[in-house]
Each structure stands twice: as C-alpha cells, then as structure tokens.
C-alpha cells in the first residue's frame, strides 16, 4: 500500500497515494483527460505528460475545462451565469 500524501485539487484538500500520476487522478475523478487542462503548481502540463507526472506532498492541481460563456462569465462549470 502506497503512503498517503496530501495534495490540493481545485482548491480543495485531498488525500492521495504517493507515486500516483496526474492521469491516475483524472481517472479517479472520472474526468476525461482530452477535454481538460491541468495546471500543476502553476505549470500547465502537456496532455501527453499526464501519465508520467506523479504528484507529491503539497502539490496544487487545477483541472479546468470549457463551460458555457459569452462575453463575461463567472461561476463553475455548469453553464450558469452568476
């Protein structure tokens, strides 16, 4: 059993297994990798590196995708305006 570490995903703390990659995280979260951008500690990752980049203690991961938006939109991935 891998050691449990703490990371942050989209601003929320989350337990994670040491050695688990970005691709593993997306798969655990049921997020389709081809539709999102991932920022790891402010570095935007290349999609082809998702499987190689393992996450470490304290890492901050942001997972972003496209939502409904026109000129000015706030809010989170549900197509609603504020």
């Amino acid at each position: 059993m891998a050691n449990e570490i703490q990371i942050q995903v989209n601003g929320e703390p989350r337990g994670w297994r040491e050695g688990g990659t970005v691709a593993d995280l997306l798969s655990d979260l049921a997020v389709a990798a081809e539709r999102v951008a991932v920022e790891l500690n402010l570095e935007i990752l290349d999609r082809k590196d998702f499987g190689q980049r393992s996450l470490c203690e304290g890492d901050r991961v942001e997972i972003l995708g496209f939502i409904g938006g026109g000129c000015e939109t706030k809010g989170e991935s549900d197509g609603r305006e504020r």
Partner: protein
Amino acid sequence: MDANDRLTIAGHEFRSRLWVGTGKYKDFAETKKAIEASGADVVTVAVRRVNITDRSKENLLDYIDPKKYTILPNTAGCYTVEDAVRYARLARAAGISDLVKLEVLGDERTLFPDTAGLIEAAKILIKEGFIVLPYTNDDPIVAKKLVDIGCPAVMPLAAPIGSGLGIRNPYNLKIIMETVKVPIIVDAGVGTASDAALAMEYGADAVLMNTAIAGAQHPIAMAEAMKYAVYAGRLAYKAGRIPRKLYATASSPIEGML
C-alpha cells in the same frame, strides 16, 4: 445563405457571420437548440474549474460537437494581463486550436475592456503563436494598434456586455471599419435583431452575441431572428444602400399622366 460569402480569419474559414456565446441558458439542451437555430458555426466558451465533486453533471461539449463548431475560448472574467494570459494558455491546453477571444476587463460595473492591458496581453500571446481575437472598445486608434501588433481581427463592442443598448457609437465603428483592414466582429451590446442588422449594414464582417439570445423570453426564436438579421444586414451592405436625402424623389414616372 450564400455559400461563397465566407469569412476567413488567419486561415480559419467560417460559414456564418453570426457568432454566439454559450452562457446564461436554462440548460444545455436549450443552448444546443438556440445555437442550431442561430446557424452559427463559431461558439464562445469560458474556461473554468471542472466540477470534481459532482461528476454526474453534464459537459457542454456533450451538446456542442467540436467537430461541427469552432470552439472559441475566451478569457472572460480576467482583469489583469497575467490572468488573461494564464487563461488563454489553459484554453489552448484544454482545446484543439490556437484561437482565443482575448478579454482584459477594466471595471466590473461596465465590463469595459482595459485596452492598455489588452494590447500588452495580445503581444505576449501572439509571440506564443496564439491567434488573438481581441474584445476591444469602439476606439479606432486601439483597433489599429491591435492590428499592428498582429491581431487578425478585432472585436469592438457595440455597447456594454449584456446591456442590450445596441450600437452606441456607429460613427466610431464606421471609422474602425474604414481604417482597419482586418475582419471586424462587433461584439457585445446587441439587444435585438435590428441592432445586429445595423452592425452588418455598417460593414461589420460578423456579429457576436450571447445575452441578446439567451436572455430573450424565447431564446430559440430570437436565435433565428438574429440569423436572418445578420444575413439581411450583410446582403444590404453588399447591395449598397441609397444615400440619405432631405427631400422626396418620386419613384413613379410623371410621363403618361393625364
């Protein structure tokens, strides 16, 4: 619609001269129907955190097929050069193209663009290979500067975003259209079909709107109205309107009268 009357921007060819946003709809089904009714082939989207706590939520791209539509990500909600550049890079990483509708906003109340920040952000992104379509004010000097630094189109506003006020400064827009030799997409402030038709009659190459459709009492019907308005305006522009005159000119001949 005339299949040969295409709009080309930096090698991307567009069928429709009406571009639409995808925000503010009741649900994705309505978004999809409205876009279909509008005939638009360019749709703007925003970049936001994916909801990871409730994965049952549907995704916009389940409804809008990126193979059928050009997905144009924007940097909406960004008030600094750094944020706008960051969101543009994220959009490119999440998407499939280098296109970005660049917004650097200056003020929450008016949502007017911070044009100094816009030019700065555009320079950075163009250097990185982005195709930058800047959302700008109806300022001919700024529009020219944006073109000079390499923007292949400019998107001046008609009025504040979501205001529905229509074209507030037709003369500035006309000057932009005369002085800037790239496609002009009038963006934001359209309220109803006649506003869109007017923008096209002035010589805009396309019109982008969101609230005017999504906020209408019947969004799908309004989407259709906008489709025809943009088309009619375009045809009228190409047909060449008659000059305005103060006095009447009879259209029936005098000859043959008793």
